[in-house]
């Protein structure tokens, strides 16, 4: 990266449990493998779980930054996969629905450390709460993760519509998770893309699909990063493709 501005991308879905955190972690690891400086932030402050996925026990989280007066740099944890992590907090009610000022505080704390990275990935929570929207707003790129369930499709669309209506965002990248085939991924994407074009008036970018693979739940149980531990698996290869798509953003900046 020639400039000091990193690519800031949020990973959102609307519906929970479609694989936001999985996508974030693997994307971060693969980007790091490409010798990029990557920071992943777990912005799901109510029910954060990126640290669990990586098998880490973070000494400091965003909660300590907001309520404990810790500096954001102290909360940065290097991971084995090669990227830096700022963990969120789990089970803290005040963080689940923080006041608008607290969200601003987090955003203000994050901004100064951005220039140290090439990529910043913000893993947002489920739903379309103020917090989720604010973190999506902080990012220049919004990655929407969905799966084959119709509810996830509708929720993803609702998320896009809200971002468009409130913040006039019209540039979203879609990843379809746990598909049977690559073709099915395209099919599902074309559906949300068609709806977006028709009702909101802009197209979506297709980043790719991730094939449903037994290796995925296995890696989660083992608290490993799939793309690093089993790079030969189908899902890993799909993640590779997606990472290449994300890298192509650099030139389009």
């Amino acid at each position, binding site marked *: 990266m020639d400039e000091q501005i990193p690519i800031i991308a949020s990973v959102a879905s609307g519906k929970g449990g479609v694989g936001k955190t999985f996508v974030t972690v693997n994307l971060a690891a693969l980007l790091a493998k490409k010798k990029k400086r990557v920071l992943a932030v777990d912005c799901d402050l109510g029910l954060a779980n990126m640290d669990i996925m990586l098998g880490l026990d973070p000494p400091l989280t965003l909660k300590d930054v907001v309520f404990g007066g810790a500096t954001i740099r102290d909360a940065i944890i290097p991971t084995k996969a090669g990227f830096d992590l700022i963990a969120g907090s789990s089970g803290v009610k*005040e963080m689940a*629905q923080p*006041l*608008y000022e607290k969200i601003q505080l987090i955003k203000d704390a994050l901004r100064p450390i951005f220039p140290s990275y090439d990529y910043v990935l913000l893993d947002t929570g489920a739903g379309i709460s103020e917090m989720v929207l604010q973190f999506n707003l902080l990012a220049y790129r919004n990655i929407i993760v969905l799966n*084959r369930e*119709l509810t996830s*499709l*509708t929720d993803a*669309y*609702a998320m896009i*519509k*809200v971002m468009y*209506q*409130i913040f006039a965002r019209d540039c979203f990248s879609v990843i379809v998770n746990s598909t*049977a085939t690559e073709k*099915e991924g395209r*099919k*599902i994407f*074309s*559906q*949300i893309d*068609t*709806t977006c074009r*028709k*009702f909101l008036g802009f197209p979506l970018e297709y980043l790719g699909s991730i094939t449903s693979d037994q290796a995925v739940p296995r890696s989660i149980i083992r608290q490993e990063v799939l793309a690093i531990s089993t790079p030969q698996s189908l899902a890993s290869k799909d993640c590779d493709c997606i990472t290449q798509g994300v890298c192509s953003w650099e030139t389009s900046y």
Partner: protein
Amino acid sequence: MWLAAHKGRKTDVVITFVDELPEPDRDALLARAHLVMVPDDDLLDKIVQLKKENNHLRSLTLTDALTGLYNTRFFTMQLEIEIARTRRTGQPSSMMMIDLDNFKLLNDTMGHVHGNRFLLKTASTLREQLRPTDIVCRYGGDEFAVIMPATDLFDAARIATRLQQAIAEIPLKKLLPISASIGVAEYSAESKGGSDEFVHQADMALYKAKKNGKNQVFYAGKPEKTVELDSVTQEEKWSLARSSKWRLEQVFSAAQPHNGTDSSGRAGLKKRS
């Protein structure tokens, strides 16, 4: 054998066998007893009856006799609770003051019976239009107040606009300019004053609405969100769901034995059309 439960000198409840008492004492005791049981009484029935009476009496102290809405006393109590809740959770609460425009004109031209009827209609309109968690009170003659727990100014203002329209649409026999002016205020975690200040804000907003020509909604402060939002429409949902139909067919075609024609291919054609 008669039993009387009454307050004793040292304890809250004492049970006395009334039969053994001399007559004057007995009458005095029966007059001040909480509960009197005669041989045919069923205890459960008796308690149910007392409970009902109690509820009725309580409702008289908390609701308005004409409309059945809550009265000012309850309103003031509940407002304190909502303010405490906002301070604790940080979630804003809102309230609105509703005043009927030109209501005196209705009373004067059509009489108080019609006036009261209109108040009843207004009360039922408010109940219909508001959410179950909102607390509707009759604040004065033709004034109503609504507490909206866990509602920010943006939502409260939208609800107020809906109410204003609904009240303006209440049918009247004579063509009278009866409408509603509404003042809305929000209590947030940052609000400094107490309930008086909160009510005052809504009152001031109402005053502005009145002064500005009635039949409108004014709010104290500025709602943060100003964009008019549409929800995801049924049409959009259908558009999204079309693919799931295709997926259903896929599932079925995988479950049933194939007979040459590719069902997914057929569905693919259908999708394109």
